[in-house]
């Protein structure tokens, strides 16, 4: 029998069991199953490990219940600034991006760096310009935000504002 396997993790904003509602946990289980299946199906059909990991991560980036792509945490300025990396164990070729805004699938951009650039790591505006040059899909800032991330950002901003209350 031919061997193949896939494992995934799906981090989200809530890290403490008490803060994770049953409803949210159920959404996350469904999301994990969907992402696992996306990668597994590629492997089952004889596809590459590189395609499988990208497909699984893309699925999680599309899912607002996880902290990547849509549903990303917000910076102090209220923006989604995303990072991603992909590596091929056969060739040790790799692609990575950091501080990426507007790119719908940061993992797709990392894959483009691996395959279509002479570099291994692109940051910020350079990564964004490379995404534009590759014709990768972009999205407005609001696409990446969810009610939950907006509320958490507002709470943080309020906390910071309160801390500044005694200063001129």
């Amino acid at each position: 029998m031919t061997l193949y396997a896939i494992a995934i993790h799906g981090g989200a904003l809530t890290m403490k069991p008490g803060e994770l509602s049953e409803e949210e946990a159920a959404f996350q289980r469904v999301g994990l199953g969907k992402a696992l299946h996306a990668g597994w199906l590629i492997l089952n059909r004889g596809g590459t490990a590189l395609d499988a990991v990208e497909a699984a991560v893309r699925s999680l980036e599309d899912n607002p219940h996880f902290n990547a792509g849509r549903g990303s945490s917000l910076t102090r300025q209220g923006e989604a600034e995303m990072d991603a990396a992909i590596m091929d164990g056969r060739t040790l070729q790799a692609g990575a991006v950091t501080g990426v805004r507007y790119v719908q699938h940061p993992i797709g951009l990392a894959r483009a760096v691996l395959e279509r650039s002479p570099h291994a790591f692109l940051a910020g505006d350079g990564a964004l310009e490379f995404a534009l040059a590759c014709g990768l899909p972009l999205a407005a800032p609001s696409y990446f935000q969810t009610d939950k991330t907006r509320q958490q950002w507002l709470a943080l901003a309020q906390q910071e504002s309160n801390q500044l209350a005694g200063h001129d």
Partner: protein
Amino acid sequence: TVGAVALDQAGNLAVATSTGGIEGQAKGRVGDSPVLGGGTYASNDSCAVSCTGDGEVILRGALAHEVCALVKYQGLPLAEACQAALRLHDDKLKGDKGFIALDPQGRVAIEFNTNVMRRAYRVGEAAPYIAIYQDE
């Protein structure tokens, strides 16, 4: 942070990791996820690893590469390599850490020190495993 490790039918490993960072992070902050060897590493001669947790801690420990190095040079089984990396410099590298890893023999290791680690794996045609809480 989300991530995946895979072994294909040709015996090749790969890893992918993607993150939105941490809530309220400083503009320009970089964690472990996009740093090769920090939160992400794969080599057919050892294993594929994706990390999640406190990015600065994982980055300072170069923990993804640490797992691969323990497998490659010390000959540790994958799960033991992940456990060793989890405890590496425990006094200096305190924080939340989680690893998913896969070796060329199709062995999956998932190690973490948090109460919540959303995770899943499937080996060949076997039934998928999906879990969130530590005790599942």
